[in-house]
């Protein structure tokens, strides 16, 4: 068994079909002009030429999920007596994310530190994460606005991926990174890839050099951002054009904040966990109606600060931004987080 593999492009559908028999496979497909991860079905047209508009984070961390259902059971003999029935939703199926980008896979590593590698792992995240195999496609060109190399990552970064693939002319070069990746790799469709290893390496270097570098180093940046915390003039200036929507956050592979709400009708209901965004007013709204982040500059400051200062301070200097550029690319007003960080460095 070779360490690496090669799959001719025409065999890709066959591979996915084979995998679909054992896994729920999600792969990027074109929906109008938008690339989205969708459940793979035979005959689906994949779109592997550019990163998906929405990273695959929702497959492991859904936009909304029912944590548990509850039901108040009333005693027919005595209406004042009620018992509570709970039903957790912890059944997860083996899943494959196919065709994520290195930045997308990196995102899950950011999540892992929060939801997995702690004493109080999140059972929902853990359940899905452990059952999910991530097959990542190295980028063969930078996308508008992306800057992964500036945040210590790269277009072929393998951290967070189980199996790496690189497009090389007529096919894909595969390299398993984990045991889970090796499992997939066992499939007989793969040819020996050792001949392509060097070619892949060169492709990675070529693309890496093309990626925009808005800032050279990030050393000292977490501290610098903290020192600007009270400088509202700086933040008001940087965020004047921000409209405080949640596009950046919801498209971000590393944003992991959530909200919990209960919805009940009649005797039964569910506890829902759903994405939340620090860009929203309601995110920090307190019951007293006081809001510590009343203004949009406080919110965007939090978003930048969290990624480039608070998270790295807590997790051994790891920047909670993978430089995918989605927040820049899709921002209604073209707010540029890399520019804000660069300005902060120079402020």
């Amino acid at each position: 068994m070779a360490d690496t593999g090669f799959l001719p492009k025409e065999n890709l559908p066959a591979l996915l079909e084979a995998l679909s028999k054992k896994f729920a496979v999600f792969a990027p497909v074109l929906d109008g002009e938008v690339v989205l991860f969708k459940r793979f079905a035979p005959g689906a047209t994949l779109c592997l030429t550019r990163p998906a508009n929405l990273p695959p984070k929702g497959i492991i961390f859904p936009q909304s999920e029912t944590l548990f259902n509850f039901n108040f059971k009333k005693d027919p003999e005595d209406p004042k007596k009620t018992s509570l029935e709970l039903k957790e939703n912890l059944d997860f199926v083996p899943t494959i994310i196919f065709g994520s980008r290195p930045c997308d896979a990196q995102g899950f590593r950011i999540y892992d530190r929060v939801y997995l590698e702690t004493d109080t792992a999140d059972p929902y995240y853990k359940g899905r994460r452990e059952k999910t195999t991530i097959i990542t496609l190295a980028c063969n060109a930078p996308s508008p606005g992306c800057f992964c190399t500036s945040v210590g990552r790269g277009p072929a970064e393998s951290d967070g991926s189980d199996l790496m693939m690189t497009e090389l002319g007529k096919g894909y070069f595969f390299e398993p990174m984990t045991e889970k990746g090796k499992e997939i790799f066992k499939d007989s469709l793969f040819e020996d890839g050792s001949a392509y290893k060097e070619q892949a390496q060169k492709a990675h270097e070529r693309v890496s050099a093309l990626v925009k570098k808005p800032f050279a180093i990030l050393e000292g940046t977490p501290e610098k951002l903290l020192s600007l915390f009270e400088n509202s003039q700086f933040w008001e200036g940087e965020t004047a054009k921000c409209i405080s929507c949640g596009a950046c956050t919801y498209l971000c592979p590393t944003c992991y904040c959530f909200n919990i709400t209960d919805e009940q009708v009649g005797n039964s209901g569910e506890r829902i966990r759903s994405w939340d965004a620090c860009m929203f007013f309601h995110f920090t709204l307190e019951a007293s109606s006081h809001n510590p982040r009343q203004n949009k500059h406080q919110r965007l400051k939090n978003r930048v600060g969290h990624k480039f200062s608070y998270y790295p301070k807590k997790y051994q200097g790891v920047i909670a931004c993978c430089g995918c550029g989605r927040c820049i690319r899709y921002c209604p007003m073209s707010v540029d987080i890399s520019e804000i960080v660069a300005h902060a460095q120079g402020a």
Partner: protein
Amino acid sequence: MFIEKLKEAVRKILPEVDVVIGYRQGFDPLHATPYFLDKPEQVDQLIWNPLCVQNLCSYIPFLKGKVGVIVKGCDSRAIVQYMQEKLITRENIKVIGVPCLRVISVKKVMAAINQQTVQEVTFEGDNIIVKIPEGPKTIPSADVAPRKCATCQLATPLQYDVLAGEAIQSNKPQDTFEETKEFEKLSLEERRAYWEKEFDRCIRCYACRNACPMCICQDKCIAESRDPHWTSQRANVTEKAMFHMIHGLHLAGRCISCEECERVCPMDIPVAKIKKKISMDLKELFGYEAGMNPDDTPPMYTFKVEEATIEEHEI
């Protein structure tokens, strides 16, 4: 050069206002980004080209003090609508009008160049030339203009205090809502399936709402609140559709058809379509078009005792 005239206008207005909102170059050659400036030395950063798409009026209701703003014809309807709804004190706004025959949709350009990285953009006559890794690509501007431009009647803004350049006349046909009428030819089932598919993509990022110049509730929007509790946080089509109905109905008779909602949608949902349908109906019912006359009252906030155009419905 037109840009010099614009900069001149901004320099003249700058001392009278606290801030001027214009455009500067964004993160790549295809993207312009709003620019808030208050110092004369910042004026040189200003740009003006058909990629200056954002409706800068959207910021105005939330700004204190005196504000100068660069306004295209389509954007100017926001100013008029604010006046109708008494959301601004007109004297506090200095409108720097710019004549404009057409802007360019970044999404359409990106689709035309298959989403590649843009190295350079130039304009020549009625074309936009986009340089991508494989070389320059010339695209007729009309092919990549937003649909609003095809029927734009406001080449010169309705409201301005200073006009950069000369007033020009629109050379476009009137909007006859062809696209809306065409869509209405689909069967009910097709229409329902269409919207279910479109709304399904919605991620409730509220970019459409926050970019909307008429969505003045913003942080207090009922799409997020618990009291009143109109929607849950479930990410299903019903709740997403509910949000879009809230957005659409709250804009009934107020939507100025700037199509910012649709431009900013990261999921490419044709949200302006709903607003356009409502605008069409309200024009037909009440002869009303939002953002055209500061003395109008939006039709949902007034009535006639006898409504000549509303007939009682049979069951």
